[in-house]
């Protein structure tokens, strides 16, 4: 028996919409998820290493950076999970036959992801509320724990993705679940995500520091902000971004060469175009990063780098999906899933999504436009 003989039957319920719609929604929502996920994983890893290298020295730009990252990370984690729900939903619609078996084959580990996530989330909060990161070495343990836990989650996600894409490996993994780690593409795939996550987090940090430095001005801010501190953070984050993108590009090419479906990817026009755009953007990004010494002096570059990172992420979300489609082509080409579209429900969902985003935007706008202090404040 091979994996194809072991495929579960198609769910008899027709899909409540055409496949292209779910593919589109899967890619779109995965892109949103991966934006926040990158900040959570990359931001925590970067913050932990910054905190460790600064050895908790008070006022050091690295401990300040760690504190800032943790400040936004608790929101980032919440949105990582929230935006992760939608792609998890759509992947089950499209890939019921391969997704569930993948999670079942490493069931205990998959379940362990929840435990890691809960602990990762709470350790982040412990660092934020109790770690006193800018006042000594305290809190480092929680921060490093969170980084390790999030990294383990990334490992599990990559493993499930690999198993789900390769039914031909199922019997071997059923007998030896850890063998998934021996997949030739496992390490490069994992590193691809990790470097990407660190790169985006570093770009966000640099952009943020540049904005703060420029608003503070040469002489320092009225409330005591230090421009030099933000300049140091911006330069530090810029170096992180440069290193991460360089490693990402090297790893990306290695990953591409190792992909069993590389030929398919390069010979399918749509896939080839998207991939080429991604590569061009990545190389351009690398050049942009190398040409800047002090990002505070070139704020446009910081914004450009961040925009390019987000664009690459969108392109790579599409390529990742195309790789999965190619991997699973031997399975899906033999099956014809029926669909009975529920267009009314889809339209209702789309309208509600717009309403939800508008409501969130309204809340943010209202908060920014109606600041208050003292007795006037809530």
């Amino acid at each position: 028996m091979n994996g194809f003989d072991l495929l579960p039957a198609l769910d008899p319920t027709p899909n409540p919409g055409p496949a292209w719609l779910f593919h589109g929604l899967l890619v779109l929502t995965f892109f949103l998820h991966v934006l926040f996920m990158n900040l959570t994983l990359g931001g925590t890893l970067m913050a932990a290493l910054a905190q460790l290298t600064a050895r908790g020295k008070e006022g050091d730009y690295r401990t300040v950076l760690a504190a800032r990252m943790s400040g936004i990370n608790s929101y980032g984690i919440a949105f990582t999970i929230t935006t992760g729900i939608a792609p998890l939903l759509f992947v089950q619609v499209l890939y019921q036959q391969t997704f569930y078996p993948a999670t079942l084959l490493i069931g205990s580990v998959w379940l362990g992801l929840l435990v890691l996530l809960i602990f990762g989330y709470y350790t982040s909060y412990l660092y934020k509320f109790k770690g006193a990161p800018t006042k000594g070495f305290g809190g480092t343990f929680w921060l490093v724990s969170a980084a390790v836990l999030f990294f383990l989650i990334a490992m599990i996600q990559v493993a499930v993705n690999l198993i789900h894409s390769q039914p031909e490996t199922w019997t071997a993994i059923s007998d030896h679940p850890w063998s998934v780690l021996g997949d030739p593409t496992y390490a490069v795939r994992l590193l691809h995500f990790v470097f990407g996550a660190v790169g985006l987090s570093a770009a966000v940090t640099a952009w943020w520091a540049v904005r703060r430095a420029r608003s503070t001005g040469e002489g320092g801010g009225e409330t005591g902000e230090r421009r030099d501190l933000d300049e140091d953070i911006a330069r530090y984050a810029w170096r992180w971004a440069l290193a991460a993108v360089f490693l990402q590009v090297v790893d990306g090419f290695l990953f591409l060469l190792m992909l069993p479906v590389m030929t398919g990817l390069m010979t399918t026009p749509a896939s080839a175009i998207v991939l080429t755009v991604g590569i061009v953007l990545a190389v351009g990004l690398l050049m942009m990063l190398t040409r800047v010494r002090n990002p505070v002096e070139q704020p446009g570059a910081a914004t450009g780098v961040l925009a390019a990172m987000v664009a690459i992420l969108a392109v790579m979300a599409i390529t990742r999906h195309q790789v999965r489609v190619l991997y699973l082509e031997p399975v899906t080409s033999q099956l014809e899933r029926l669909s009975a579209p529920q267009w009314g429900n889809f339209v209702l969902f789309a309208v509600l999504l717009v309403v939800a985003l508008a409501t969130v935007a309204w809340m943010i706008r209202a908060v920014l436009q109606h600041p208050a202090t003292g007795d006037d404040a809530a």
Partner: protein
Amino acid sequence: MDYPLWHLGIGGGILMGIVAVTHVIVAHFAVGGGLLIAATETMAIRKQDREMRELARRGSLILLLIPTVYGVVTGVGIWFVAGLISPAAISALIHNYVWGWAMEWTFFVIEIAAALIYWATWGKVTKGVHVAIGWIYFVAAWISLVIINGIITFMLTPGDWLQTHKFWDGFFNPTYWPSLVLRTGIALLMAAAFLVFPALRAKVEARPQVMRWIGLWLVIGLALSATGYFWWESAMPDEARVLFLGEGAVLPALIATRSFLLWALAATAVVGIVILLALPKAARLPTAIILALAAFAFFGGYERLREGTRKPFLIHDYMFSNGLLVQDIKTVNQEGVLSRSPWAARAAGVSDPSDLEGADPVKVGHAVFQVECAACHTVNGYQGIRPLLGEDPTLVSAVIELLHIQADDYMNMDPGHRANLENLTYPFMPPFVGTDTEREDLVQYLISLAEPGGSSQAAQSGGAR
């Protein structure tokens, strides 16, 4: 049936119970707490009451640290666990209700964003904006309950969906409205149970007023819960009620669960009214803990009862608790259950499930057990099969035979019409499906469990039939 085998030693039901019950407690607090916190802040602004403001602020910290962390992760966790213990069922639900879940997700996005902004902007924005965000949070949270309630109740009472397979026919099913009233009431009970703890930190002179305020919401929650619960009971189809109500009730465990939850509701009422309304000055940590435990017990009991009354189905009249579709009984009886379960056949060393000649009967029986029984039964743990086995092998054989005959009853029922459970010998168990050989092998395996060292026999057995 045709997914890889994954069974936890403690039993899938226990695992789901731990994840789901703790999740729903937190998730319902997220709804009721949202209402209570927004109402409390509104009151605080109107009366310029610092203590009420502090109650809302502390409550929102609990909202931040429990529902948006543990609640969110375990919410996803229910999908994870369902995908591991009942992949066919979660797949069926998702393929029918993906747009329902997607709609719920849009409100969830608002809910999470509002919760985070609400906590982060205490003392930083105008009162009007802040309290408006609190109300937005509550409305989004409650609508997400309104949506998910349709999917949960669909599993117990699919209603006209069985004939039409239409989204809204299953969504607005016979227990939808009673369940919505009940769950809204429970949300308020959970809010009172959680918020009584920060209320204990109010200044001594202000504490009675704060406790009475929470008590008021508790009373509303009690009224809605009791009304919703008895309405829910009356809306249940007779075939499901017969399991735990009336003189002929057939499931003692569910009868006991019903008594338990009603006593727990009564305890919540008594303790809550005494410590929150009658003697608010006497409220202390132990009494708050007792109130919370009573409310959790009521809710946990209700969830246990709801799950239990669905037996032997995951989706009533459509899919059994082991993933077997009612419509597939005939085919599986003809082709054999292992022909439908390649992973189980592989585990038993069977290369051709249509020809079991030469295969080890105990191993085949073990594989059949894994597919048909292990969704509910472990060997020694929760609902352990070994303690249920008598010493008389003919008894085991007779039980399996009866379960096999029940398959005919299910086959003979009109498609899309509720199974007449009253007439079944084992109305809470799925029928046995499969060939005669598979049935005999299952009996052999079960008998082997009753023998000394039987637990390891299946794994070691090397004999052929």
